[in-house]
């Protein structure tokens, strides 16, 4: 079901495919190694520290700070209709990083490195197939509220 993740998906088969189901249900999940407890975001099936292949999903709060961002005007295949769009990299409060589009609650003109953002799970609307992603929003934004 990982083919649900992303507007364009190049990578439908993965050991962490359950990530997309959780995201569809509104939960942002990292991984926790069952052997040593190491957490990772993005989630990974194989622990980079102890090499165990046994993991569980662990829910992340989605709060974080903006590490950097850019507005893309020249788009790759599949994104032509969306330009310009702004993507940002977020340092998550629980550790790890995430890259996503900046959503409507963030004012593009005043975007600043270091500002607080909230990662919000999303379903693509007006799309026949199930398609999920997440956006960066102003702190306090809930999934239902936008």
């Amino acid at each position, binding site marked *: 079901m990982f083919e649900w*993740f*992303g*507007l*364009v*998906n*190049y*990578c439908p088969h*993965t050991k962490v495919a359950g990530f997309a189901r959780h995201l569809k249900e509104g939960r942002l999940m990292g991984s926790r190694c069952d052997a040593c407890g190491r957490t990772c975001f*993005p989630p990974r099936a194989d622990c980079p520290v102890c090499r165990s292949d046994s993991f569980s999903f662990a829910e992340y709060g989605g709060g974080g700070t903006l*590490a*950097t*961002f*850019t*507005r*893309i*005007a*020249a*788009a*790759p*295949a*599949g*994104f*032509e209709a*969306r330009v*310009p*769009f702004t*993507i940002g*990299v977020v340092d998550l409060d629980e550790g*790890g*990083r*995430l*890259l*996503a*589009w900046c959503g409507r609650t963030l004012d593009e003109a005043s975007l600043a*490195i*270091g500002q607080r953002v909230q990662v919000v799970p999303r379903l693509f609307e007006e799309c026949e197939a199930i398609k999920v*992603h997440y956006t960066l929003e102003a702190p306090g934004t809930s999934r239902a509220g936008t």
Partner: protein
Amino acid sequence: MGRVGIIGCGQTAFGRRSDATVQELAFEAWRLALADGGIEPEIVEATVVGSVPEYHKQRSLPGVIQEYLDLNPRPVWLTEAACASGSAALRTACLAVQAGAHHVVAVIGCQKMTELETAEILGLMGRVGDVQWESGFGTTFPGYYAMFARRHMHEFGTTADQLAAVAVKNHHYGVLNPKAMFRKEITLAKARASEEVSSPLCVYDCCANADGAACVIVADERAARALGRDRVVWLDGMGCSSDSMSILRRHDLTGLPATRAAAAQAYAAAGVTANGIQVADVHDCFTIAEIMACEDLGFCDRGEGGPFVEARQSYIGGAHPVNVDGGLKAKGHPIGATGVAMTCEIVAQLRGECGARQVPGATVGLTHNVGGIGQYCFVNVLRRD
């Protein structure tokens, strides 16, 4: 390990080469390298090709190149490290020579980037990052470097004028390089007024896709002294490092740790420091990349890369002339050829053959070739005795 010498160099003109196949481009560079070194093809024992396969219609490029060069049945193989594939080929050739497997090896860097249709290029462009976690959001190659630029501006106060100053310098030197794709001066105002690609980077902050090939022929010390006589340039320090594919695993968004690691290895092996580098070709796929390279290589302090170029320290006559062949920016960037072409340029500089763009009296030079956004980095220190 024994010394490895460069005994012959050749580079095609870079640009749109709709007149030639990729193996014909490779042959141009090969013929020039043989002529440059006065080398008979019979002594070349193996060929290493540096190229990125997905740009070519022809699959398994080393096969057609070795055939077209008429070098069968001698061994040939491909190395791939994205935009550093050419330097990966050079390193592999040197390791083969140092291991004693071969005495003389040809390195061919080549790429034909204009074979693909625009739609195919846009498709490739969408897969430069980590396809699992990043590409689904429409990330692009300029987009990644733009995010480095944004962070560099935030932490160090680097300005868009300083980014553009890199483009102005490299176009200035491109005029003096007959092999360069763009041979026109630009002004700071023109660079600043160009269209946005991925903020804060504009068209003139980005190098251009190109076609081209370059060849260097390397030899062990005994063969190099016999064949190259007093024109040999020695690869005295070779450094190589890697970093995460994903920007999500980069702690540092203002530089490339792989450059710092590779440079430390190369400087130590050659017994020099950054201050001893008299001329350098660095990987300026984007203007911010040259600024970060000057910092990571130690030509200036961290955060000082913007003022460094603005004060003309990277021009001839400055503390560290950088990309005085026009860089990727003005030469064009046929990705597999780039690392080998950088090597050709520094060899020519150390032999004093560069005419109007010659750094006077240079005997120690450096090449810095990056793959992707620093996933691969190769730094070499070259010396003429």
